[in-house]
């Protein structure tokens, strides 16, 4: 059986495992060292329990991370792994994925790692569409260095490095990724295992770069950053679950919906009762033009008032590493005669 048979084109070429696997197979003997209550635990558990479902050979999976609390992730995964350099995981993973088509390569990174020091490698991996699954743990703070604001922190944030409040306008990671030509972008919540697993599965199925932003609570330095998305009272009025092919509506009774402003093309939230069901935007992850997904990403600013969760975009576009391997394979039609390469065209001979 191959990953194609499994319906996972994103993992084409990666050998599958015939036996049964459980989450335990993916755990290492290393003690997990995050703070009590850290959202990273939930993500780790989700990944460890979801990976066996993919049915891959464990030894053909590689986790590559940068530096940060979240970047400790590989130590806890009983696969191959590298805890590399702050911000550089996408670059290292690009080299690995390009030279080895038989591996499933995952990148684990934080909001500082991916968007501050590592911003450039991230956007280039996305535009190249290298076959990487990038899990961006966004806790909107630098955890490991003890609480400075990050590129996703809200404006005015008081932290150790900004006692009078931060001044930078934050990135919206989904918008940034779409601006960088990403072929797959999703968002998930650390605390919602089911939804997180769904997005991870969709990412795994995608061939090319898949960026998954995971809102992750840091109880020590930014506690409750996403509480409004978890609070039973507020949750339903804030979270907009995205389901491909369905009109976008949410709220306890599905009373809210997303409509397009005909004048500007921007999306906004409206009451279904007021606008009518047929006015709702139907979610479509497959649109080639990323303008729709981009508009969707603008529904939520850093205030989290209306926050789409799920897959924003998933379109098919050749993956860099596939193309690179294809070029090498095509070139092999030419014989690799080292001797004639070294000689070249212009030689002369000196006789004894």
């Amino acid at each position, binding site marked *: 059986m191959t990953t194609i048979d499994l319906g996972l084109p994103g993992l084409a070429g990666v050998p599958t495992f015939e036996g049964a696997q459980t989450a335990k197979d993916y755990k290492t003997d290393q003690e997990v060292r995050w703070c009590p209550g850290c959202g990273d635990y939930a993500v780790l558990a989700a990944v460890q329990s979801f990976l066996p479902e993919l049915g891959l050979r464990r030894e053909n999976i590689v986790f590559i991370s940068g530096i940060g609390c979240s970047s400790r992730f590989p130590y806890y995964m009983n696969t191959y792994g590298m805890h590399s350099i702050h911000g550089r995981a996408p670059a290292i993973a690009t080299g690995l994925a390009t030279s080895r088509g*038989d591996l499933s390569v995952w990148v684990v990174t934080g909001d500082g790692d991916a968007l501050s020091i590592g911003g*450039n490698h991230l956007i*280039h991996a996305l535009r190249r569409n290298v076959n990487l699954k990038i899990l961006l743990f966004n806790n909107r703070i630098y955890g490991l260095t003890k609480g400075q604001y990050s590129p996703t922190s809200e404006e005015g944030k008081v932290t150790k490095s900004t006692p009078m409040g931060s001044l930078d306008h934050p990135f919206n990671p989904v918008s940034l990724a779409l601006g960088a030509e990403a072929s797959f972008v999703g968002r998930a919540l650390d605390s919602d295992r089911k939804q997180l697993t769904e997005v991870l599965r969709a990412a795994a199925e995608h061939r090319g770069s898949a960026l998954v932003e995971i809102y992750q609570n840091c109880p020590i330095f930014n506690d409750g950053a996403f509480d409004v998305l978890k609070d039973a009272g507020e949750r339903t009025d804030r979270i907009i679950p995205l389901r491909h092919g369905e009109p976008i509506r949410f709220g306890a009774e599905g009373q809210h919906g997303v409509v397009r402003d005909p004048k500007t093309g921007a999306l906004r939230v409206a009451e279904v009762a007021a606008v009518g069901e047929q006015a709702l935007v139907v979610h479509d992850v497959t649109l080639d033009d990323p303008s729709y997904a981009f508009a969707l990403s603008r529904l939520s600013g850093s205030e989290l008032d209306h926050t789409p969760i799920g897959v924003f975009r998933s379109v098919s576009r050749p993956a860099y590493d596939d193309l690179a391997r294809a070029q090498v394979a095509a070139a092999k039609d030419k014989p690799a005669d080292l001797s004639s390469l070294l000689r070249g065209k212009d030689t002369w001979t000196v006789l004894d």
Partner: protein
Amino acid sequence: MSIDVGRGTRHTEVHKMDRVVIRFAGDSGDGMQLTGDRFTSEAAAFGNDLATLPNFPAEIRAPQGTLPGVSSFQLHFADYDILTPGDRPDVLVVMNPAALKSNITDLPPGGTLIVNTDEFTKRNLTRVGYATNPLEDGSLASYQVHSVAMATLTRKALEPSGLSKKDAERAKNMFALGLLSWMYHRPTEGTERYLREKFAKLPAIAEANVLAFRTGWNYGETTESFAVTYEVAPAKLAAGTYRQITGNTALAYGIVAAGQCSKLPVFLGTYPITPASDILHELAKHKNFGVTTFQAEDEIAGIGAALGASFGGALGVTSTSGPGIALKSETIGLAVMTEMPLLVLDIQRGGPSTGLPTKTEQADLLQAMFGRNGEAPVAIVAPRSPADCFDMALEATRIALTYRTPVLLLSDGYIANGSEPWLVPEVENLPDLSVRFATEPNATDGSGAFWPYLRDPETLARPWALPGTPGLEHRIGGLEKAENTGSISYDPDNHDRMVRLRQAKVNGIAVADAEVDDPSGAARVLVLGWGSSFGPIGAACRRVRRLGMDIAHVHLRNLNPFPKNLGALLANYDKVVVPEMNMGQLALLLRAKYLVDAASYTKVAGLPFKAEELQDVFAAFVKGLDS
């Protein structure tokens, strides 16, 4: 049309010479590099030994006719084995006033000067600061001047071709080449073949260039202005098949060969930068050898991708120059900590900062040694000539694969662009560099675990276990590792031990003993060099010996670790002189390690040493000891 340009018919005096240095100089747009290259090929095909020195501006094409826009190509060919492209030209060909102005001071009195007069207009002269026309004001009286209206002659010859005036005149470099080919009895078929191939899609241009070339040849043959032609006989080199090769090409071929000898795919992750870019360009052509080239978004990503590929079992390579190494240092540190094979090719150029991108220098040695946080030792090798780049690529690969360590290879702009004849190796004779990957758990505690930091007792290398190998799943990274198991460890003693182990591993790399060139065996002064100064130092030593003095020469190719015999060797001499194109970097290392009072001779002018200059320096040291 059939002009026999291969043989002279007019009777001219033929001087036999053992060596000649020619310099072509013109505007960047005049095609001087091509002209020089072709003459080099002709000389090579004829069997001369040769060495070349291209010199071009940092701008792509600085404004025409200006001093910064001058591009030149110097070539030295001889009937014996030579070591440098020559200090000064015997013949200088200049295509415009700017070229004259910036090159004439290098031509020794009595030298031959061939001038394309067409460009010596009032405007062009003023532009470069000539108040009067040097061709007319007597200022060139000490040279043998040949004024030739090359552009005009070329244009006239090409009139029947129907080419525009501008296009026709562009072929004037081929006129110059033809003229020089005639003067030096060079074979010409190769150039004609080359032109026809190069312009295969533009046959009119091809024929125009061939015609210009022949016109130049015929000009020498038929006009009477050139009374003498010269003959430089083929050199008596070791038997074998030769080709001409530049350092960057040799390096690229060395990498291809390293992939073949190690049976590993090659992965080059890099970012363009002068003068290293040509390595990328060359390797990109050889995908059929299992070579992947990745032009990354920057130097950091380039080396990162190479390291990622190494992790996956490829021969990871990165190439750069100048500030590029600074950007790679953090990842080199990670490679040191993770103990993975990685080749870092540094084609040194003039610094600091952006510096002089197209000039040469050897000022990155201490950066290569020390340019990382913490104790992060790496192996360092340095080729000594263009052809040696091939061997050093294999040597660097041997070290990287055997010891699981990053290796820095220090070439420089002079070697990279310069060329020399290369005795092409037989593929069967290339070394076997194949690798044994880990396939089984190896823990010595009976746990059946895989310990990624258990060392080979002889090399101190750790195992290389590739993703995809069942049972050897493991994690590596930049935090300090526990001995053997490779788990993260904050234990003080473990850290001290690991720092020393990493150092011991690099210190223990087996390298060939240094060889001394001391023909008389009586030298008291030792000249110690490294890298591209091999040619000038060697040539200077020959000259000093010709003056009847004894002098020894050692040229280091392994800079970290040094050859084991180096200390003893240094102790054999009364004086050690270290010429370097930096402020004394190797000298510093030698002084610190061997407490030898090595004298530095330094020059940081962006150009290789001249043998003449070194000769004086060395002779002074020899005489200083004798008196």
